[in-house]
């Protein structure tokens, strides 16, 4: 890193014990400049066994899943099942600001490392626990891989085609959701700590975060309506993904001016010129007519042509991209959203940069995910003061 590197969280030390659900939390903090130490068991984190893998070959250093969620972190190995390992963890915790964990409820307590125990060692420590259902309540012991959180949280029921099964989102979104909440909670706790000197426990339930994002509770309470899934359709028709000459476009006409603008973009087709078509409910009742008119227009043009024709009229419309097309998009490239870095095993390839730009504090990908135990010597030797001989012993005893 450059000598003049300044980042918002550069003075913050984070211990990251997460395997899957909370992995992104540590990445977000690391992207904002915190010193995040990923602690893995000596055999390597569970995340190293999750695909996709480079060339589809599983291997400890070959998981793109692990690679994605651990950029900017340092990595050490530690056997927390051994008492010597737990003692080392306690020494690290004495110097840390934030601990993130995503074990099942009760595991940290059984290790003697739950929040009250860590607080004894370090009054200012902030612990973020990222679980499927939270630390309290009748479901707290329930198992919750991503799909379970997404289902019980209510997002799943709302997504998918009308006449097919509900469908879970790609890339384990309940994990992302819970992790982002854990970061917000930890940073809020950190800010409060400036005045009080006291840390706290941040309790994040993936189920609860997803339930909030499902947007159903207020709506049921207020109108007794239960949301239904309906493909990509949102708001009044036309309001979905339509096919076009070279792919697909996503057109919305939520507001009156969107519809008027879209009709102009289509060249004011005769069929839908009557005043009644300005009424969204009327359009919904005549969805077949709308779909025919819209498709006749869209099939004549490319997705970028349609997008430009709509945008000029203030109509929310975008192309439907694959990841490949998005990576080639002129806007995203111009913004430097993709960054190439070198990894000792994976070689040089692109990553997505973090999605925030702070004018005074750097926020970008500086280095790839750590190799297994890459920073053992730096952390245990340089920072905890163990000699090379002691490190060799800890290694042979299976502690690091």
């Amino acid at each position, binding site marked *: 890193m450059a000598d003049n590197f300044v980042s918002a969280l550069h003075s913050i030390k984070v211990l990251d014990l997460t395997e899957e659900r909370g992995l992104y939390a540590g990445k977000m903090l690391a992207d904002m400049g915190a010193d995040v130490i990923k602690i893995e068991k000596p055999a390597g984190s569970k995340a190293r066994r999750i695909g996709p893998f480079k060339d589809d070959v599983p291997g400890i250093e070959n998981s793109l899943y692990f690679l994605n969620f651990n950029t900017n972190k340092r990595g050490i190995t530690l056997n927390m099942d051994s008492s010597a390992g737990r003692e080392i963890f306690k020494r690290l915790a004495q110097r840390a600001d934030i601990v993130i964990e995503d074990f099942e409820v009760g595991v940290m307590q059984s290790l003697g490392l739950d929040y009250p125990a860590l607080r004894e060692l370090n009054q200012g420590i902030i612990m973020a626990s990222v679980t499927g259902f939270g630390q309290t309540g009748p479901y707290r012991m329930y198992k919750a891989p991503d799909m379970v959180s997404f289902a019980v949280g209510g997002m*799943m029921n709302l*997504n998918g085609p009308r006449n097919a099964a509900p469908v879970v989102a790609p890339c384990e979104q309940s994990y992302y959701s819970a992790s982002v909440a854990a970061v917000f909670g930890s940073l809020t706790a950190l800010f409060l700590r400036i005045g009080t000197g006291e840390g706290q426990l941040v309790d994040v339930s993936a189920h609860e975060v997803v339930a909030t994002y499902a947007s159903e509770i207020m709506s049921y309470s207020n109108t007794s309506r239960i949301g239904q899934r309906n493909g990509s359709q949102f708001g009044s028709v036309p309001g979905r993904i339509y096919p076009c000459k070279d792919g697909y476009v996503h057109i919305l006409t939520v507001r009156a001016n969107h519809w008027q603008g879209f009709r102009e973009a289509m060249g004011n087709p005769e069929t839908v010129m009557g005043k009644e078509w300005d009424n969204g409910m009327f359009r919904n009742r005549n969805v077949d007519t709308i779909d025919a008119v819209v498709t006749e227009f869209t099939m004549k043009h490319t997705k970028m042509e349609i997008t430009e024709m709509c945008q000029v009229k203030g109509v929310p419309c975008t192309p439907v991209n694959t990841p490949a097309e998005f990576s080639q998009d002129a806007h995203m490239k111009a913004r430097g959203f993709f960054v190439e870095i070198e990894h000792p095993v994976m070689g040089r390839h692109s990553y997505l940069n973090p999605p925030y730009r702070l004018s005074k504090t750097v926020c970008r990908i500086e280095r790839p995910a750590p190799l297994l135990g890459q920073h053992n010597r730096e952390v245990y030797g340089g920072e905890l003061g163990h000699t090379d001989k002691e490190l060799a012993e800890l290694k042979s005893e299976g502690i690091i």
Partner: protein
Amino acid sequence: MALALQGTRILDLTDAVAGPFATMLLANCGAEVIRVESRRHLGFRAGPGAPQGPEDQIDFSKVDMSQLVGANFARFNLNKLSVALNLTKPEAGDVFKKLVQVSDVVVDNLSFGVVQKWGIDYDALSRIKKDIIVVSMPSLGNGPHEQWTTWGMNLLSFTGFAYSWGHPDTSVEERAASNYYGDYIAGMKTAAAVMAALYHRAKTGEGQYVEVAQAEVTASLLGPLYLDYFVNNRISPPRGNRHPQFAPYNSYRCKGDDRWCVIAIRSEDEWQQFRQALDSPKWAEDAKFENIAARLKNIAELDENIEKWTRQYTPHQVMKILQSSGIAAGAVQNGEDLYFDIQLRARGHMLEIDTGRQGLITFDGPPLHLSAGQRTQTKGAPILGEHDDYVYKQLLGLTQAEIDKLTESKVIF
């Protein structure tokens, strides 16, 4: 107990979902969030019974302003204050700048170029208050598409999210892109970025400009998928509910109309427990299902057998039976289930608020629990201009005569 953001004042120039959700999260932790808004643009405020039509054709002297607190607006604006200020008037910019002098953070999700047009962009504001934190939430940010108007759903399509969200046989037209997911995450990430900037300011005294572009936030949720493309040059079709490494792992029909559950088995131990929980049916003894490789190979038949079992039960029965045996399973809950969810209720997630006109409504509480620093009492969403007196008299020290004059010229409007 001290609230985390007590004494932090935030000027909120946001509308729709992502922006108001971000500032509401900060309000939940004690920030004084003041919505700076105007009758000139009602946006998401309008609920059922509110005046229709373009704002410049509404006679506001005949409008009961309490009608302009629709439930959809309220759910993202709890615990906030509101001041009426029409920023399209040049004099309003001066009033706004005075307000900035006594504030800490400004958040906007206005269309491209609007803050520049109004003379209240970061350059202008940092000149009058050096350590101000200004946060913009554009949909795409500066660049070739900076003028685009998008809703969060468009960005699901733009970033590859919609492309990847469906069953393997779902047509692109029917893929999932009808939700506010991207908006919520953009809101939460923005709130986190505000906290990082506030922390930095507390340590160094330095303010800054923060930009969170929603397209980038949305794409950032697809990391592994993008690396699969960057490294393996592969664009996978949507995966649906099954898992490439585990089985059984899917959604299954239950008793009832359009009722579903999910079951996710990730190890041989769990498979054994699962068979026992089903009272060891004969089909499950078959060599076709004896290990993970075999189960993945015979996945259709495996899922068929399981669905015969799940169809006898409600989603919640399946969840109860299997979770009691230590197996990951869940009801696919609908809106009604969520409202009655015993777990959410036990955790105090539900906020019941007397909204006056619309009666008692249940809102989502904060989506995370802090053991210190979060509000325990919730106030409803403000009426437009409800806190004009507090802002103009107490914070800015304007006289009644000055306020009258600004009201007459529709600066306070």
